[in-house]
């Protein structure tokens, strides 16, 4: 029998493909990038087989090219994500995400006594460790580590 190579999510002509997103964090990526407010065509697949991640997700966004600064915001939830920049159905550039030096408004401070958990304050962190991501709160100066990290 002939094996059929078939794409789970159909190809795009121009735009960005974000691959290797942990399946459980797909909707967090959508939220962080604000994709729910985009007008362009977006297709995604989730719970796809991945040797590396177990279950992965993929997003294809037509006619959208991200700044590094914007795309790095997903590093907290999809540290292994890979980006393919597509022009005329061809991959013209590949990128990986990098954990930025500061994180604004994505994660929640784990300190229940922190001002950011009491008032309308946008959270801000300095990234003190990039490997096992660890964040130091700009306000209460306490550390939020990966295990305790909650995405807002």
């Amino acid at each position, binding site marked *: 029998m002939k094996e059929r190579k078939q794409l789970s999510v159909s190809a795009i002509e121009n735009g960005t493909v974000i691959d290797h997103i942990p399946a459980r964090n797909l909707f967090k990526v959508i939220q962080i990038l604000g994709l729910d407010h985009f007008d362009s065509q977006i297709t995604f697949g989730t719970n796809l087989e991945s040797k590396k991640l177990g279950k992965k997700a993929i997003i294809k966004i037509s006619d959208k090219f991200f700044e590094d600064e914007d795309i790095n915001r997903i590093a907290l939830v999809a540290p292994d994500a890979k980006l393919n920049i597509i022009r005329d159905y061809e991959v013209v550039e590949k990128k990986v995400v990098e954990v930025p030096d500061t994180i604004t408004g994505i994660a929640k401070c784990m*300190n229940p*006594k*922190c*001002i950011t958990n*009491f*008032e*309308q304050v946008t959270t801000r962190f300095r990234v003190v460790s990039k490997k096992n991501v660890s964040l130091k709160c*700009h306000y*209460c100066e306490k*550390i939020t580590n990966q295990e305790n990290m909650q995405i807002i």
Partner: protein
Amino acid sequence: MKPRSLVSIDDLNTGEILKILDLAAEFEKEPVQKLLEGKVVATLFFEPSTRTRLSFESAINRLGGKIVGFSDASSSSVSKGETLHDTIRMVSSYSDLIVMRHPIEGSARFASEIASVPVINAGDGANQHPTQTLLDMYSIRKTQGTLDGLNIFMVGDLKYGRTVHSLMMAMSRWNTTFNFISPDELKMPDEFKLYLENLGLRYYEHSDFTDIISRADIIYMTRVQKERFSDPIEYEKVKNVYVLKNAMLANTKPNMRILHPLPRVNEIHPDVDSNPKAYYFEQALNGVYTRQAILCSLLGIK
């Protein structure tokens, strides 16, 4: 331009710290200088702290400034549900500088970002209390003549003690040797020890200090609070180990001085008070000079 605030001791570089200490020495020589004449300072105490508030208000009064504010949140608009954001916006327009004490951590940093006038953090929960650190450093420099090469003993609750953490971080800018003496449950957290290791500074941990006390230049005492112990029996076992008594001071260095952020409960026996090495009440007085220096420095007056 955003006004300069003092939220954390790390907001100041070493030169700025020394400048404040020098200025505090000037105020010690001449405490009454009408440098804040015509200025209004707001003292917002969202939780009561009589000692800190009186020290600030004394400093402001000696500088000829006027004070507005409240001494606990129940007598302020907070009890009506006003946000910190709104309180700070409002008070900014009534005053030239804000001194604030608040139980929530990070509240002072947040306030400094909203306020149009300088903010001095007089304690934000368990986080920072930089004016205490500066007055501790002033007391250390005054009694030892230097901040460099000292052997500092920190005794008591080193786990939750905000003052010891800040002082340790600040003194790590100089070549300081630290001796941490605490019950097992209240040891200095690893993150601070790691910080010292990365700087190549020496520190030693002990559960008792009677044998090593002769090495100390400064003994910094803190309160061991019963409520910090998960097991009340543990508290009963250790509560008398961390009490300083006059008889223990016999073989200490002549330059050694005992500091305590106050209030003390029983961790320094009253028989120590008359020993010339007891310095905690002078330390509290130094707080007024140091706060005078901080107020003038942030307002760009000196």
